[in-house]
């Protein structure tokens, strides 16, 4: 596997896959997978995003001839999964339970095949400082940071701790919950006076904050999909926005301009693809992931975070990368489902 941003190569050309269902086709591609259950919704703060992701993926899978049912996660989940016996489950739950590994634990418990990383790996990625430490150990750059629980501010005095952070990391800073996505609870702090408010916003989403040095540069998202010969990076997507790439910017078309592929030199494209694939491998991820990073003027990509259940909405980055690679979403998603089937025994 080279580290260049090659498109995923399907066993069968993605664009040539027939849209109609069938147990097999004359080209010899795998038979249509059995029924797939897409898990979406749940009770996390990202429920709305998850529902949108679920609908989009289900729509694409149906276009690829796959039988799909979208199911919201509630107290009946186990009964539903036992009764429906899906061939593959695709957990598209964003936020807690979806990305922290717990739903995947349940799927393992039931012996069901599923798309995406295993519970332990998901748990590591979900906890941003754990993932950052793993990346640093693998020689992948990530902004300097501290992780502090709310209780510590109470025990040591909030202002004292805030001053110490600024002294060590400088300004500007980015404050974010250690767990969570969609930029919920994330604030960029330009001035010391804004720091306390950023902490309050962050702690509304969780009890522990990750505070890291803000890195300026080209904002990129590099998606990785497992192909037959290993993980491969899709073309990087560049995000250009006047303000913060916050929740509003992420899920409303318009305020953000995306460049897919990103406006990078071939060397830079290869470099960021290499970082994303290494991150995917370092953390033991499976099937798909998305690595968000900044390419600063220094030229060394700095990883902000990694997602095991990246958004699949109309404005999300992984679907844009698939299209930029010249592939079609139905074919790629179907291939991910097919790839998940053997994972039951893996």
């Amino acid at each position, binding site marked *: 596997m080279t580290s260049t941003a090659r498109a995923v190569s399907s066993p069968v050309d993605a664009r040539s896959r027939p849209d109609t269902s069938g147990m097999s086709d004359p080209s010899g591609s795998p038979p249509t997978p059995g029924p797939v259950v897409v898990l979406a919704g749940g*009770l996390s703060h990202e429920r709305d995003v998850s529902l949108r992701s679920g609908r989009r993926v289900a729509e694409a899978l149906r276009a690829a001839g796959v039988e799909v049912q979208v199911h919201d996660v509630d107290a009946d989940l186990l009964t539903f999964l036992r009764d429906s016996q899906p061939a593959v489950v695709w957990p598209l739950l964003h936020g807690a339970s979806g990305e922290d590994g717990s739903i995947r634990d349940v799927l393992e418990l039931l012996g069901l095949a599923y798309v995406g990383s295993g519970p332990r790996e998901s748990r590591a990625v979900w906890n941003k400082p754990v993932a950052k430490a793993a990346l640093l150990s693998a020689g992948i750059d990530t902004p300097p940071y501290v992780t502090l629980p709310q209780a510590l501010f109470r025990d040591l005095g909030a202002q004292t701790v805030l001053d110490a952070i600024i002294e060590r990391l400088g300004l500007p800073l980015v404050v974010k919950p250690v767990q969570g996505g969609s930029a919920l609870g994330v604030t960029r702090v330009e001035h010391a006076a804004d720091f306390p408010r950023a902490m309050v916003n962050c702690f509304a989403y969780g009890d522990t904050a990750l505070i890291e040095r803000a890195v300026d540069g080209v904002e990129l998202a590099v998606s990785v999909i497992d192909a037959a010969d290993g993980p491969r990076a899709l073309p990087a997507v560049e995000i250009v926005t006047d303000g913060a790439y916050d929740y509003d910017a992420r899920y409303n*078309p318009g305020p953000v301009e995306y460049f897919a592929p990103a406006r990078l030199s*071939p060397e830079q494209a290869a470099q960021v693809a290499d970082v994303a694939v290494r991150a995917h491998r370092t953390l033991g991820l499976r099937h798909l992931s998305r690595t968000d990073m900044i390419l600063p003027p220094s030229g060394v990509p700095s990883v902000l975070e990694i997602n095991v259940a990246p958004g699949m909405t109309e404005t999300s980055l992984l679907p844009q990368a698939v299209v930029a690679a010249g592939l079609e979403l139905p074919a790629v998603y179907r291939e991910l489902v097919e790839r998940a089937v053997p994972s039951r025994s893996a």
Partner: protein
Amino acid sequence: MTPEHSPGTRLDPWFGAYAARAHGMRASEIRALFAVASRPEVVSLAGGMPFIEGLPLEVIGEAVQRLIRTKGTTALQYGSGQGEESLREKIIDVVALEGVEAHPDDVVVTTGSQQALDLVTRIFVDPGDVVVAEAPSYVGALGVFRSYQADVVHVPMDADGLLPAELDATLTRLAAEGRRVKLLYTIPNYQNPAGVTLSLERRPQVLEICRRHGVLVVEDDPYGLLGFEGDPLPALRSFDDEGVLYLGSFSKTFAPGYRVGFVIAPHAVREKLVLASESAILSPSNASQLAVDTYLETCDWRGQIKAYREMYRERRDALVGALAEHLPSASWNVPAGGFFIWVRLPEGLDAKSMLPRAVTGRVAYVPGTAFYYDGRGADHMRLSFCYPTPERIREGVRRLASVVNAEAELVQLFGTSARPDDDPTDVEIPSPDLA
């Protein structure tokens, strides 16, 4: 970078084509959080949804079946732009309970009173015109005014509703500034969100002030018949036929699913409203109108309103009692009717930034900033008592108290305070969660 890169995309080829009035029509973090509030695990004290389970559904079902059998060809056909005459006649009986004397010809039936608001604003408000409204005011009305590019100026209230002297001073100041005030938008009974009622004494005063300043009064009265103490006060429209547009609704007293509301307006205004409505929707739903008409004709709607009043009073008492027990550090009013209690949070707390914590704690409310046009209200939240049972209300307040206490500790720790919403368009679009 190399020159052959493809151009960027904003994922919406029409991004540059939207009208200015579409600004703010977008998904927001707050709206996303409300997606969780709809789940049964969450005690939602947010939405203004009436307790439909309290209706005699079997009786209504039979009446609607009979309607389709006997009047199906009318019910399923286009109708009159002004609305079905038989329903307009019955609306006159309903509004008479609040002292309104009108003729069926004065009534225009609309798709919920939300459409009435839209039509009134459409025919009266040009971009830049001023609408005066109570502080705070109904989020759905603010959204309509914003979509017509009006400016909203709030006037304060006290426990007896809008302050006449403040209204007079505001209208005088705006006139001196050369601003054109077109409407006073007011919810005189059990106001949404503040729960207060305009006192009988102030009603003629408000009308006199508006008449003197040449300002048309839009009286929005969805809750007038849902008082807990005695007969309803006379509507503003009962004092003035020419200077008041009366907006009514069956959404709170019967069922919002039918989307039937109405306007009672002077002749010339009524004509324009009918034309505006026809251009928007051709005609309100005949099926819905005839269903409401059948309900009013065959069911004990007065008895149902009485049952609703008793049920909602019990729920209000549950909410007030639970607040007193679990949230003594907050302050609130005790409404004499309607659906809502307006709660002032302990010093420094910000209802909007606290909402994620509340959702995590499985309880929901509407932050006060939704009810102001100018970003104020962060120190308040609206709690509704109409939908959850008393037991769920008490559980919701218990959860809310934990959330407030945790937030208070945090605010004290970091020394922050509630601050104006820097993007008051967040919850502009009225949704069922916020109605």
